[in-house]
């Protein structure tokens, strides 16, 4: 496996944003009580992430990077330090657009996601995806692949976790471990499983 497919596979399993880099944990723990909601959120993350990583890539390459403003006659400018503010702005704008789109065309999904769609703006998995894209120096095609793969991996993780949680509702758990403690333990075992896929995709 090489090229884009390898990036997708690696981003989904070995470098899973939720389980290997522990990103997006707040949403991961809060919206994983039911598989249906987790599925909706996973789809929203895939939508947002597949858009934001390539868009941020273009902005970074043609506006922010050292020497990127060559076309405007300002080759000596290095605006890399502005990336945090710009990326967050781009993400917020895209989330807003996605929200309006869902409200108009898929009102049920919009209702099910509720507060968690706008919260994707401050989801570390989304910003993390863009920052990893910069750090690893992906080109446009690779960032499309990475945006999709990393989001699909995050969605896979939250859906698996929600399914486990639905089953765990019927089990007998020590009192102090109920709730958050158990959620962390289960996520830990899930992460252990994903860590076993290390090396997949080269």
């Amino acid at each position, binding site marked *: 496996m090489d090229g884009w497919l390898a990036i997708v596979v690696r981003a989904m399993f070995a470098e899973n944003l939720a389980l290997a880099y*522990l*990103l997006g*944990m707040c949403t991961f723990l809060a919206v994983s009580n039911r598989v249906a909601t987790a599925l909706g959120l996973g789809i929203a993350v895939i939508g947002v992430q597949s858009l934001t990583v390539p868009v941020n890539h273009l902005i970074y390459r043609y506006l922010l990077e050292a020497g990127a403003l060559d076309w405007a006659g300002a080759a000596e400018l290095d605006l890399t330090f502005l990336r945090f*503010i710009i990326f967050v702005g781009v993400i917020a704008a895209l989330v807003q657009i996605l929200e309006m789109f869902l409200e108009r065309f898929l009102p049920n999904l919009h209702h099910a996601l509720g507060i968690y769609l706008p919260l994707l*703006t401050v989801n*570390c998995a989304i*910003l993390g995806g863009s920052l990893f894209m910069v750090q690893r120096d992906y080109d446009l095609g690779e960032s499309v692949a990475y945006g999709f793969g990393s989001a699909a991996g995050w969605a896979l993780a939250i859906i698996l976790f929600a399914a486990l949680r639905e089953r765990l509702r019927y089990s007998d758990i020590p009192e102090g*471990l109920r709730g958050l*403690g158990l959620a962390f333990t289960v996520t*830990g075992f899930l992460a252990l499983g994903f860590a076993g896929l290390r090396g997949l995709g080269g």
Partner: protein
Amino acid sequence: MVEWIMSPYRKQLLDPLLVNNPITVQILGLCSALAVTSALLPAVVMSIAVTCVLMFANVTVSLLRRAMPKSIRLIIEMTLIASAVIVVDQVLQAFVPDIAEILSVFVGLIVTNCLVLGRTEAYAMHNGVWASLADGLGNGLGYSVILIVVGSIRELFGSGSLLGRQILRTQAEGGWYTPNELMLLAPSAFFIIALLIWAMHAFGQVRRRDSAAAPVRESR
């Protein structure tokens, strides 16, 4: 000492350390926290960075809270936080480039750390400057406590050292200790936090049982 105990900001400073800890009780700021704890030094640097950003964000939001229109307050808050993070990132890259390398994207991710936005929204929007400063410092310290505990456990058992200094001599160097490599991987962070939460719950239950005045909470 007496003055300090009478200090009006004692509650803001001490509550987040244990009783209302941002990570284990409020469940805020997990995202960028756990990935940097595979060794103690990055955990300490990360704690300092987050505490600085938190104090700056709380103070500025508290100062501006009457001037901010409600509808665009989130944008203003995000801009303030992101500016603070940019400064912290530049300082780290200038003075401790090795550690900035280890922390990689996680310094930038303080921008989306729910802890910072959560505290500015929940506290600084409604309180005065000094109280907000105390709240920021308190929550920053509460966050640091967890990071440092997790970082110490992971580095000590994962590589037998603390802050890079060898404590347990590993077998590779002719000692007796076999490093537990699991500790260096992400899953161990989840397990350690889960155990910490369990310990804190158990501690809370014992305390509730001791104080007769407080009603005993029904088990869920």
